């Protein structure tokens, strides 16, 4: 069960009640406005309690909210989109959507991870977990973009790459490694936006970028909290503890210098105002592309290299590691 869905249920009821009272108020001679004000106050108090300072675990749930705008909602706001399908080898993976697009006047290559909005669509899209053929489609489209000189715009939203038998048989590792390589050598600007979940290598495969934008309540992590808990403590139920320790929120990543900017969400999350959120994100993507457009390919690639070369913290003093005696 999604924590946010659970907690916002009371709020939605209050909202409904306020709307009813307002409607009644408009019709009746009786003045209901003191009651309305009292409810509105209660509403904003609960809202502050829930969303005032969210824990990392709550943010993970916000990122997974079933009503949260998905990549398709963002792509729908592009002026034009012509989808390209398939990896040319095996299959068209519906967890990846990509193609030529117009962001305002600008031609770009848009590539996105697409989760489903209901069970039926989730089955078709494998819950947004791409298979190797999905990553090979990503790689193909990124290569085409670089070939044509079109900037690459990606939307990241996945728990991680698909961990099934078929994916192993078709070399998931190689498919992701090849994506990382393609994005590294691309001669065009790349802007990646984490709109929901950024799970592990499966997310990184689409987010080696010159600019990384994160939504306020998105997360990006070395492994999903459940995955991390399973790996370290063989206990997926310790996911909340993992989420706390992993430093996976957008705010953490801005501090690490991995995310470049954060797009604020309305109180209650992106799904409370999808249109507003999406237009802010697209505006930031456009601004980032404007800044990057003037850079020659060689300079762009050099800056990208240096950006990733710098990331990482280590001590530079030599430790004495050898003990010769018992």
């Amino acid at each position: 069960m999604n924590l946010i869905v659970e907690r916002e249920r009371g709020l939605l009821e209050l909202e409904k009640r306020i709307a009813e009272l307002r409607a009644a108020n408009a019709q009746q001679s009786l003045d209901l406005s003191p009651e309305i004000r009292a409810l509105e106050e209660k509403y904003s108090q609960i809202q502050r309690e829930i969303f005032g300072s969210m824990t990392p675990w709550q943010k993970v749930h916000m990122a997974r909210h079933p009503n949260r705008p998905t990549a398709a909602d963002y792509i729908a706001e592009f002026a034009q989109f012509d989808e390209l399908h398939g990896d040319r080898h095996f299959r068209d993976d519906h967890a990846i959507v990509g193609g030529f697009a117009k962001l305002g006047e600008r031609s770009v290559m848009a590539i996105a991870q697409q989760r489903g909005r209901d069970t039926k669509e989730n089955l078709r899209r494998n819950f947004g977990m791409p298979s190797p053929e999905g990553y090979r489609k990503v790689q193909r489209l990124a290569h085409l973009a670089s070939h044509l000189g079109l900037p690459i715009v990606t939307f990241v939203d996945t728990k991680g790459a698909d961990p099934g038998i078929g994916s192993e048989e078709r070399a998931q590792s190689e498919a992701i490694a090849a994506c990382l390589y393609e994005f590294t050598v691309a001669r065009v600007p790349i802007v990646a936006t984490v709109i929901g979940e950024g799970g592990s290598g499966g997310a990184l495969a689409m987010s080696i970028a010159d600019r990384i934008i994160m939504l306020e309540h998105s997360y990006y992590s070395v492994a999903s909290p459940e995955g991390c808990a399973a790996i370290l403590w063989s206990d997926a139920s310790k996911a909340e503890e993992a989420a706390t320790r992993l430093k996976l929120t957008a705010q953490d990543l801005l501090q690490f210098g991995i995310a470049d900017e954060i797009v604020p969400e309305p109180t209650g999350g992106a799904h409370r105002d999808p249109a507003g959120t999406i237009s802010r994100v697209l505006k930031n993507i456009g601004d980032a592309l404007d800044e990057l457009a003037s850079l020659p390919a060689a300079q762009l690639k050099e800056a990208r290299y240096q950006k990733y070369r710098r990331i990482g913290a280590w001590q530079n003093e030599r430790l004495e590691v050898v003990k010769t005696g018992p």
Partner: protein
Amino acid sequence: MPDWLPRRRAKNEQAEDAATWSKCPKCSEVLYRRDLAANLWVCPRCGHHFRMSAVDRINITVDGDFKEIGGDVLPGDPLEWVDKKKYATKLAGDREKSQLSEAVICGTGKIGGFETAIGVMDFHFRGGTMGTVVGERISMLLERAREFHLPCVIFTASGGARMEEGMLALMQLAKTTAAVARFREDGNFFVTVLTDPTTGGVSASFAFQADVIAAEPKAMIGFAGRRVIEQTIRQKLPDQFQTAEFLLEKGHIDMVVPRTDLKATLTRLLDYAAAGHRARTAAS
């Protein structure tokens, strides 16, 4: 050779006196450790390849001297990670257990007469996981190799990205990829030897970006770990799944090479690449 390498070897011999015998985990044969070492840690009865320490690997692969690169790059604790233990305490335990400063040793040396940049990962240090130090040392190695036009051979052994360093660990996939790309774009030769096990973030980055990918027999290689897949599909996987032989059959790797043939095989590969390099240099 780093100054602690010979000392590590001396210590190893002491340990061998205390534990002279090892049991093969595959066939249960009890083996005299000195015989096992002489047979390159391959069980003489069933051919099981024991997981090797990075130092032993360097000793059986490199002709003579080995000049370490990045040995002074040591782990910090960027997330100030604590679970049952502090990350710093875990690292201290790994240092004690493995006698290594991190999960990879990088450097230069000769393989069959060919000067080569060599990286060797060690599963005994934090499961060979890649954190910032592994990413940094591998990148330094590839940069050095690029500078001197050396071929590069990396032996992988890794459980993936290191959880305790969070996103900074994941970013090492990007960092090493960038280093591999630069290295290869200059026309240099990159070989990986996948040893047991190679999974997660290492298999999904430089391990599978090489020009030639070799693997040791029966090495477990894959993206997702066996346990994760079994939990996802709720059934047992066949024994052969994700082995080197399975990957060879599926077309993911170039060759499966027994450890006893590995040095000779690498030498031949380096020779082909050197011939190509000479031809290109002569033509330009």
